[in-house]
Structure formats: C-alpha cells, structure tokens
C-alpha cells in the first residue's frame, strides 16, 4: 500500500450556520490522480480551499507527508509543496505571464530578475509540452493557455501535490486531451494530482481513485478500476439512481419561428463578434449552438433578445422583423430568455421569489390592475410555480439570493417557461448545476420543444448538446462553421469544428 501524501481528518468547515464540510476524511496516496466527485454545493472546492489555506478557521487536522501541519494561509500550503489551480483563475490579466509567475515568490530578490525567471519558465514549459510566451500579457492568452500558466505557476513553485478545481469546464475536447496528457506526465514523475470534477466520463478516463462527496460528507472512496459502470458513481453522488439520458420523442416541426440572415455584430471592444451568420429554427426543434466560450455566442444571443444592436443583417421572430428591436419589444413577441449569467441578468438577488417571478409579466392582466399589483393572485401563482418547477425553498417569500444555484436556475426557468414562449433562448441552462438539477431543467426544455416551441440552446457542454439538440450549429470566431443533425454529430466532428477546422482543411 502506497504512502499517503495527505490525510485530512475530521474536517468541518462552517460559513455562519451553513455547514459546507462535515467530518470529512480524505486520504490521497503519493503519485496518484485522485478525483473529488460531487454535485454542486457538495463541498469539493471548500475542502480543497481548506487544504490550500484559503480559510483561517476550520475544524479537523491535516497530516502532510506523515506530519501534522497547520495550513491557514496559502503561503503555508505553497511552502509544503501544494499548488492549486482555482476554478476562476488567480491570474492578473494586465501583468505579463512571467510577472504572474514570480509574483509573491519567497526567494525573490528585491530587484527582480525577470529574464532569469523567464528562462527557467520556458524550460519548464518545454519539459511538460506547454510552451507559453513568458512576456505575453495574460489577458491576451486564451482560456486554455491561461490554465497552462496556472499549472506552470504551481510547478515553478515545485508543487508535489497539484489541486485542479474543475479544470475541464472551460476547455475544448482537444484541450482536455492535452490537459490529461499533462496530468499523466505529472503522475509519472511522482507528483500527485487532485482532480475536482462532476463529469463522470473524465474521472473514469484519467483517475486512479475517486472520493465522492455529497452534501458536505464523504459518501465513499473507490478505486476506479473496480467501478463497474458509471451509473454506480452517479448514484453515489446524488444518493439515488439517476437516468443519465433524457428521453426525447422525434421532433414535430411546425413552422419557422426564428430566422437570422447575414447577421453581423460587434463585441463590447468593437471587434467583430458575429460574422455573417444565417440560420433558422422551427417550432418543435432544439437547435444547439456549440462552441468554446467567447466565440460570439453571447453577442449572437444579445442580438436576438434585443440587448445588442447588430451592425447588419436581419432577425425575424415569428415572421416579423425584430432587427434592432428593444428587449421589451422582443419579449412581446413571446420570446423567453434563460440568460447566461443568472445572477447578473436572470434574477434580482435581494428580491424574493414572487417578485422575481413577475419581473417580465407584471404589467399583464391578472398580475396587476390599474397599475396596482394583485399580490393575492401573484402569491397563489408563485406557489404553483415553485411546486411545478421543483424549486426547493421554505416558501415563495424567500430572497432569491438565498437559494442554491440549481434552485435559482429552476426559478428563472419557471418564470420563462410559464409564458409558453414561441421561441426559447436558453444559454448555458445547466452551467454550474449538479446532475439532478441539470436533468430536471433539460427535461423541461424538451417538454417545451414537444409543445411546439422553437428552442435555441447555447452550451459548451458537448454531452448536453449531443443529447438534447435536434440540430447543432457550431460557432467559431463568430462564424457559422456548419450545422449537423443530431445523428451525425459526433464528439470528434464537433471538436474539430469548434477548433475552426472544417472537413478537408486537415493536412
């Protein structure tokens, strides 16, 4: 039996009255890739933040390399040889790569030797096959490159234990392969990797052992080669059997609802974001929009929903021209929008659930009379929605910010679908949600499609797109790379298109 590099014993971490981790025991062996699997809010990141010294108070003890240690500041963790790549990168965009790498190093001389550091950094990059220009500014790098900077930053500090917090969420399939190669290389030279994820197939592919967290507690630690099927892991994670596939009937098309013709739009920076895109969506089908984040999906959605003025092209909803229309005009055409950032655009945190439910429809009959809101009816209707859409809350008077991420999303989805839209624009509908909530929201979207709604679904999750979409449009640098029907959309084909490679382009 291999030695443990880290043992976390009886770790309990509270935030106020909320218990994020309760009596967690985690043993990680030297030289393994150890997965932390769990739904959102299961306490994976919290546990790792404890280990990295992000919190100064928690209960329990940590044994590192056989010796009890106190880690209440990241500098202790770094000194022990623990490195962490956070889910939201801890990089400073306006500084150069090398400045980010040496920032805070203990053995820095007062006058910095950036050239020397850059040489060492480049060598390190060559060794692991992640070459990055040390003099580039971080903000000029792609997300995948930034992640490599983060990994190299930890290796530069000679991390023996590397924690990767949901590293694959932002990567293309090709980049994920690259990341897994790096993880394997690290393992081969005796380093240990803790890999946080809620994607079962990735864990099955790369990890040696897996610890499953649920509701802040450890459910089990299993050897991956002893796991018979992934449904078993999923069941451990959610505490019950889950159907991993959403059932879907063949689609019944009922007329074009959205037409986009030669649409071109600029980003906030004034750069071309959407370039000459054309497509249409019929009632009763789901068109998935696939692509790496930042390839113009957000701007496309904003043009359609009236939040951004296109520079040229036309948009027709239900046959009527809505190019350049305001958001309210678009909503009046019976369009629902599940926005990409529910905190920013989908809800108002300090308002309660009832108030959030009526944000769009407050002017309509039943909701209000002569400018006065009809709270009686609103209250009753909100209770129904809370029940129908399975929002877990004491009651509909609860402030929206107090709900968990999944329940906030259910609330937004409930409000948007309650209007029985002709067109539903859903952006990352399951981003950051656990399996249970994801499946629920996906089934609601499918139900909407079966009722004849045209659905445009933007996502970066290939599994979700391949499972739900009737057709998949791939966007790359603002362009329509092609539309595949569900049956012919394979991971490889989509991955190539997402990276900007069309059939026949390959050498």
């Amino acid at each position, binding site marked *: 039996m291999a030695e443990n590099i880290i043992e976390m014993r009886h770790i309990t971490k509270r*935030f106020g009255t909320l218990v994020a981790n309760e009596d967690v025991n985690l043993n990680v062996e030297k030289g393994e890739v150890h997965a932390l699997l769990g739904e959102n809010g299961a306490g994976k990141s919290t546990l790792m*933040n404890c280990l*990295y010294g*992000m*919190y*100064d108070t928690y209960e329990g003890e940590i044994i590192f390399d056989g010796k009890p240690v106190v880690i209440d*500041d*990241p*500098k202790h963790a*770094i000194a022990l040889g623990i490195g*962490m790549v*956070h889910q939201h*990168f*801890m*990089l*400073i*965009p*306006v*500084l150069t790569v090398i*400045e980010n790498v*040496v*920032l*805070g*190093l*203990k053995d*820095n*001389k*007062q*006058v*910095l030797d950036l050239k020397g550091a850059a040489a060492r950094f480049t060598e390190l990059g060559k060794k692991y096959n992640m070459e990055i220009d040390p003099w580039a500014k971080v903000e000029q790098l792609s997300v995948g490159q930034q992640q490599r900077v983060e990994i190299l930053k930890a290796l530069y500090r000679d991390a023996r234990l590397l924690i990767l917090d949901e590293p694959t969420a932002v990567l293309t399939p090709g980049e994920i392969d690259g990341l897994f190669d790096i993880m394997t290389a690290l393992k081969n030279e005796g380093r240990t990797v803790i890999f946080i994820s809620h994607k079962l197939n990735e864990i099955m592919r790369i990890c040696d052992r897996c610890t499953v967290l649920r509701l802040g507690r450890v459910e089990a630690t299993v050897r991956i080669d002893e796991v018979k099927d992934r449904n078993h892991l999923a069941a451990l994670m959610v505490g019950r059997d889950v159907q991993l596939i959403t059932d879907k009937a063949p689609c019944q098309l009922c007329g074009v609802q959205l037409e986009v013709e030669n649409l071109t739009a600029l980003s906030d920076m004034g750069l071309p974001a959407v370039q000459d895109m054309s497509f249409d969506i019929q009632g009763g089908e789901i068109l998935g929009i696939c692509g790496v984040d930042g390839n113009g999906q957000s701007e496309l959605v904003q043009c359609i929903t009236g939040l951004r003025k296109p520079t040229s092209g036309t948009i027709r909803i239900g046959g009527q021209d809505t190019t350049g229309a305001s958001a309210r005009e678009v909503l009046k055409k019976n369009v629902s929008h599940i926005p990409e950032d529910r905190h920013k655009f989908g809800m108002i945190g300090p308002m309660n659930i009832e108030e959030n439910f009526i944000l769009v429809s407050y002017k309509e009959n039943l909701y209000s009379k002569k400018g006065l809101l009809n709270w009686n009816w609103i209250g009753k209707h909100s209770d129904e929605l809370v029940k129908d859409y399975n929002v877990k809350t004491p009651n509909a008077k609860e402030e929206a910010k107090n709900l968990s991420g999944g329940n906030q999303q259910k609330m937004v989805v409930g409000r948007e679908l309650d209007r029985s839209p002709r067109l539903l624009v859903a952006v990352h509908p399951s981003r950051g949600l656990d399996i249970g909530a994801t499946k629920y929201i996906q089934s609601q979207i499918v139900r909407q499609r079966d009722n004849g709604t045209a659905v445009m679904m933007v996502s970066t999750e290939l599994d979700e797109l391949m499972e739900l979409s009737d057709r998949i449009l791939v966007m790359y640098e603002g362009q329509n790379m092609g539309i595949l029907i569900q049956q012919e959309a394979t991971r490889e084909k989509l991955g190539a298109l997402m990276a900007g490679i069309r059939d026949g382009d390959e050498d």
Partner: protein
Amino acid sequence: MIDFITNFLSADIRTATPLLLAALGLVFSERAGIVNIGTEGIMLTGALLGCMGSAAFGSSAVGALYAMAGGAICGVIFAFFTVTLRANQIVVGTAFNIFALGFTTTLNRLSLNGAKAVGFPTYPVPLLSKIPILGEVLFNWSLPVYIAFLLVPACWFVLYKTNTGLKVRGVGEHPKASDTLGINVFRIRYGVLIFSGIMTGLAGAFVSMGQLSQFIENMVAGKGFMAVAVCVFGNYSPVSVMLAALLFGGADALKYRLLTTSIGGYYQFLNMLPYFITIVALCLFAKRSNKPASSGVAYRKE
C-alpha cells in the same frame, strides 16, 4: 521676455512640487487599490505640523520630519478604517478632509496663530546653477524640490522592477490572486498608505514652508485634490505623473503671471484656470488607464 519665461518656469516647478510629491505617494496607494481622497486633509495637516516643528525648533528639517510623521500617522488611521474595518474609502477620505480643516484651524489659533516659521533654505547646485536661465530654473531650489524630481525615476524603478512594486500592482489588480500566492494584502495596503502619507505630509510642509514660511488656514486650497487628479491624469505611472504635475503647476503659474497683465481684471476666471484645466484634462484622457481593477474595493479574506 526672458525674465517672463524664467519666472514662469520657476513658478511652474514651485507649484508642481507639492503636487508631484503627493502624487508619487498616491501612485503606490492607488496602484494597490486604495482611493485616498483624504490627501487634501493630510496635506493640510502636514502644512501645519511642518510649521509647528519648524517654529518650535528653529529648523526646517525638524518641521519636515513633523510633517512626514503626521502624514504617516494619518496613513495608518486611514488604513485602519478602510483596510481593517473595510469602510468606504471615499467616505473616510471626505471625513479626513473635514476633520483636518477644523483640526488645523483650531490648532493654529491655539499655537502658531500665523507666526513665522523657518522656511526651507535654498541650495544652489554648484556650477550648474550659474548656467543662464536653466541654472535659475533647475538648479536653485530647496531640498524638497530636488527630492520630488529625483524620486520620479526611483519610484518608476521600484514600481516596475522590484519585488515590492510587483506585489503592489498585484494587490491592486486582484487581491485574491495575490492572497493565493501567500502575499499579505493587508500589510501591503498599510505599507503603501503609510508611504503615501509621508509623501503627502512632506508636500504639505512644502506648501507652508516653501515660500511663505507661515501657516494660513486652509492654505492647501485644493492642492490635495489636484494631486489625486495628477495621479489619475498621469495614468498611475511616475514619469507621466511628473508631466501631469508640471502641466497643472504650469496652469497655476500662468494664473499668477497673467494677473499682472492687462487681463488681470478677470482674476476670478484666472483663479479658475488650474481647476478648469484639471477637469478638461481628466475628461480628455479618461479612457487610457492603468487604473487597477480592484480600485476602491476593500479585501475580505474568507
């Protein structure tokens, strides 16, 4: 004409000096993410303490030390409120200004009451000060002026080439990222506020002891605010800050030159000139900015 130019340039450097001293301090505190609008009050405090020290010991050096020590204490207090207690920086800064105005006025009436202090003596640089025009304009000054301009390259070097400078920039842009690298965000922010307090205190001493050698109530008259504007207009970078200070100082100098000419009758307009130029300059160059991403936001460790 030559006299006019010499006088104008000398007056420019004289008025630019306190702006530059304070703004160089502000470059560090702003870069670390602190907006210190209380600079005005700290400068006023420095002006009074400088005179008091100088009058009591008959030495401008002691006066300067008093002013800098007072500035450092102000920096610590400001840091306690905004960094430790995470109070709103603008509110605390405004409170500083109101407090300083009352505090210096009262203390002045109780002690100095307009008494003369020893001003900063002039040290002409040997030989160089004999060069026509240039010698008079550049090499015939008191110590704070030389210090201010020599600190420009020094501050540039510290900010961009040293470990400390990198930490300061890191903390202002992304305190949490800096924290994950083991940097103590609170210590850095206390440090820059103390440094900035010292610089502002010295700037205040120069305001009262540079020419008049006497404290007058509210004699800073907006120079602290202008130093903040200089720091922003100079894009938080020492060399540009120096140019900005010279531009704003020039506007002030121009005002005094013009008062003696035929348009001197419109003196209200001329009084407005430096402030007017400040606003126009800030509007014109508002976009290109090294403004730190976490400017004005207190850091909370979980």
